[in-house]
């Protein structure tokens, strides 16, 4: 579904991604782990072109999306939902409006259609009764579940998560992971940058370990957690497990 080829990203003189080649398959849940500053977020943000790669190619469903002359970035992004560490809900809109905005403005759905869809998504994340609330009246966990519903509002083919539980109080992490777990079970293709090793172990089909701008090791969660091959993976896992 997504193919990444020799992806490099530099911020000025800072070389953050140093040649990433990988592939995300349809229906797969891929967790990306690694130390802070290793380039996990940057990698994820390159996938939907929130960051423009310095070189290399990204293919989405066979089409090269790094071919900026030919591709409409906005059309590509419609196919990819993204969930941020800090939720980024629109604070001046109700939960319902947050979810309806893109379907109405980007996909030209009628307000009625968009609302029907929004309520069904809110049901999915267990927040139907909060439709008319404003984000600042919700807990962090609730906000992140709304953000997931919003990201799903365009019926994307892939969901990208950037540390979706890192900004949450411990007691709220579970409710968000639960929603993500269900999404994975439904067959959603997901790329999840996370520090939740329990989640990776349980839900991921594959785990990528990133260090210093490269994917140093990848394997099934069972293998990578029980018998990491690379020294750096071993060191990282020994520190956090």
């Amino acid at each position, binding site marked *: 579904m997504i193919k990444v080829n020799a992806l490099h990203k530099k911020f000025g003189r800072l070389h953050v991604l140093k040649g990433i080649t990988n592939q995300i398959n349809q229906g797969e849940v891929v967790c990306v782990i690694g130390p802070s500053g290793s380039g996990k977020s940057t990698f994820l943000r390159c996938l*939907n072109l*929130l960051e423009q790669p310095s070189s290399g190619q990204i293919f989405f469903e066979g089409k090269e999306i790094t071919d900026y002359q030919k591709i409409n970035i*906005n*059309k590509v*992004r*419609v196919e*990819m*939902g*993204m969930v*941020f560490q*800090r939720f*980024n*809900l*629109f*604070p*001046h809109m109700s939960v319902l409006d947050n979810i309806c*905005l*893109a379907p109405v*403005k*980007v*996909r030209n759905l009628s307000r009625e259609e968009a609302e029907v869809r929004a309520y069904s998504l809110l049901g999915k994340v267990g927040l139907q009764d909060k439709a008319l609330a404003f984000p*600042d009246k919700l807990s962090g966990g609730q906000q992140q579940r709304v*953000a997931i519903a*919003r*990201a799903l*509002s*365009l019926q994307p083919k892939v969901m990208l998560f950037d540390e979706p539980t890192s900004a949450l109080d411990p007691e709220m992490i579970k409710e968000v992971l639960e929603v993500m777990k269900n999404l994975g079970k439904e067959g959603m293709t997901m790329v999840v940058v996370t520090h939740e090793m329990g989640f990776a172990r349980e839900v991921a089909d594959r785990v990528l370990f990133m260090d210093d701008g490269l994917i140093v090791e990848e394997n099934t969660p069972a293998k990578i957690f029980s018998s990491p091959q690379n020294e750096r993976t071993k060191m990282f896992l020994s520190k956090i497990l």
Partner: protein
Amino acid sequence: MGYKWSWNVIVRSFPLLLAGAGLTIRLTCIAVGMGILIGTFVGIGRVSKNKFIFTLSSIYVNFIRGTPLLVQLYLFYFGLPALLGFPIPPFPAAILSMSINSGAYVAEIVRAGIQSIDQGQMEAARSLGMTYHQAMKYVIIPQTFKRIIPPLGNEFIAMLKDSSIVSVIALEELVRKGYLVMGRTFRSFEVWTAVAFLFLFMTFPIAQLVNFAERRLKQND
């Protein structure tokens, strides 16, 4: 100091001064209203990635903020007519220069307002497939409204005071009226005290509103 304060002068000249204050308010409201219109577009231009739009709006803002309002007024009242070959009456000249002046200051307020919005908002909007234009229109700009109310109030106060400059082209706003009354009564101390307090009566309530709005905003953050 044998000066004898005369309430009588103030009472008698009050209607005249009040009329002047009326014109001061009218000039300021029109100018700041136009300034908000101009400033919104120029402010958005100041965060544009389009080099041409950015440069154009920057030149405007820097030119206006780097030159005195008095000179701008003379440019429209004396300069432009010389160029066009017909005179511009004082009122339109005053409105024109004050609006264009206010537009530059409002533009900076709008720019700062836009830049104060968390980057994540733009990213979230763009990740939902919105164009830059849509993201600005539906997500960024609406959030700046609340934040720019206090600085806009300050701009209104500043413009209200600066509007006294148009007295030099014989527009009978508050300060000009002050001159007239002074010439007639020779009671300069009473006259300018009255003028000062009339300005204060206009600016003080707005300043209080600005304070109130600022406190409310802080609470919400």
